[in-house]
């Protein structure tokens, strides 16, 4: 039996609307906004620039430094401004998701700062943040081997689905909900995967295949947004 989603989406259907816009912050070297359903992320890139403090410099390659943050009013219960354990982990995860495609070897001893903020949150914020950050890096003209696109696969009761919203993430009936955020290049290389919940390896493989298709869809949206700003 296929699980019936409350908002009427098919299992493999992404949330609407999906909006992507590049060049939203004039001060930044690169910037982008990515909206997936009710989740809105913005990202700005500053650099490559001198890396301070000096002792953190890497003479072999540059450093990518990501900072993920949720604005205090982006969720129903106000978040106290400043870093938390959660945001610190997601910042690092984001760095790992992006680093494989960024040609950091071109910038020894330098740092590239990526600032990511959630203006409005409804689950899937790290994915939206990574999508915005990838576009912002490309917009900044940082040499990249590829883009990355991120989406959360998941499972609601027994059905593998894509792109859970907050309401679905809190689903508790049957086998409950499983959340699997995945980041991939359009060639299918996985740069980031996390999992919370309960799933068989067979279904996980199914979920990854589903995420692969969706990440291509997102890749096209990112590419289109980047081309739009290039034409201006």
């Amino acid at each position, binding site marked *: 039996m296929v699980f019936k989603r409350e908002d009427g989406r098919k299992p493999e259907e992404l949330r609407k609307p999906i909006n992507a816009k590049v060049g939203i912050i004039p001060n930044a070297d690169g910037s982008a906004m990515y909206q997936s359903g009710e989740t809105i992320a913005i990202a700005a890139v500053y650099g490559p620039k001198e890396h301070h403090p000096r002792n953190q410099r890497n003479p072999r390659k540059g450093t990518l430094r990501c900072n993920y943050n949720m604005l205090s009013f982006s969720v129903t219960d106000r978040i106290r401004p400043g870093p938390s354990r959660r945001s610190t982990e997601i910042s690092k995860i984001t760095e790992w998701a992006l680093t494989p495609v960024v040609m950091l070897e071109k910038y020894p001893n330098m740092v590239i700062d990526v600032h990511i903020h959630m*203006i409005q949150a409804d689950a899937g914020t790290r994915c939206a943040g990574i999508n915005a950050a990838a576009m912002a890096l490309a917009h900044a003209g940082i040499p990249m081997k590829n883009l990355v696109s991120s989406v959360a696969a998941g499972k609601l009761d027994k059905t593998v689905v894509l792109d859970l919203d907050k309401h679905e993430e809190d689903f508790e009936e049957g086998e409950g909900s499983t959340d699997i955020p995945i980041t991939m290049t359009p060639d299918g290389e996985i740069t980031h995967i996390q999992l919370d919940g309960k799933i068989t390896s067979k279904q996980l493989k199914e979920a990854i295949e589903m995420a692969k298709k969706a990440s291509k869809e997102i890749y096209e949206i990112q590419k289109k947004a980047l081309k739009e700003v290039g034409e201006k």
Partner: protein
Amino acid sequence: MITSKITGDRIKSYLEQGKRFDNRKLEEFRKIEIETGISKNAEGSARVKLGDTEVLVGIKMNVGEPYPDSPDKGNLMVTAELLPLSSERFENGPPRFPAIELGRVLDRCVRESKFIDVEKLCIKKGEKVWTIFIDVYSINDDGNLLDAAGMGIIAALKNAKIPKYDEKEEKVLYGELTNTSIPLSKDTPLSLTYHKIGNSIVVDPTREEEDLSEARVTIGSNNGIISSMQKGEETALTIEEINRILDTNEKVWKEVFKNIEKHIK
């Protein structure tokens, strides 16, 4: 990057002739754009753009204990974060002086003007009152974040709806907003800042102009009634200069208010 001396000198010599790089008059604001309801989980929110400068303001509400010296009044808290996302000049870490000052100056503008009727935010005297959190974030800094944030606060407060409160469970039901707005006075305070550059008084400076500012005066006022004021930076001002700023404020306040009135109803 800090504005170079050569650019600074040119800006000053332009101002002597009453001119600015972007063709504005000294007392003229850039294009003001205000958008409300930009974040649906906030009780109220607004985006303000002054030219390339952009800020976001969000309102969150919670029920808590009143302060002992005001047992029947709601609480207000204004915080600002100058995000490194918005400028290469800002860094991560605990808020530094400019962010703290911005929050405090605008807190006083709202508080002292009695714009919010805090007595109506009392649920049970001495025990339960609403706290209003106003959070300001910079998105792009091209000068005059202070005035942009001030407009954003007004727009977000007007946009806000109080959430439902379950008295039995003592829980705020977020996401279930009532139709009740935050009780606000008709007299809208606007916080406007005047910069002394050379012998000129300038409003709404760009980043480059703001770097040259020798002194600034921020005035929170409503139609001629001043309720908060702060002078910033190290240069002294003469009484004549303060008088000139006060006269300019009367004029500029009216123009700006007319300009943004439709957004803050």
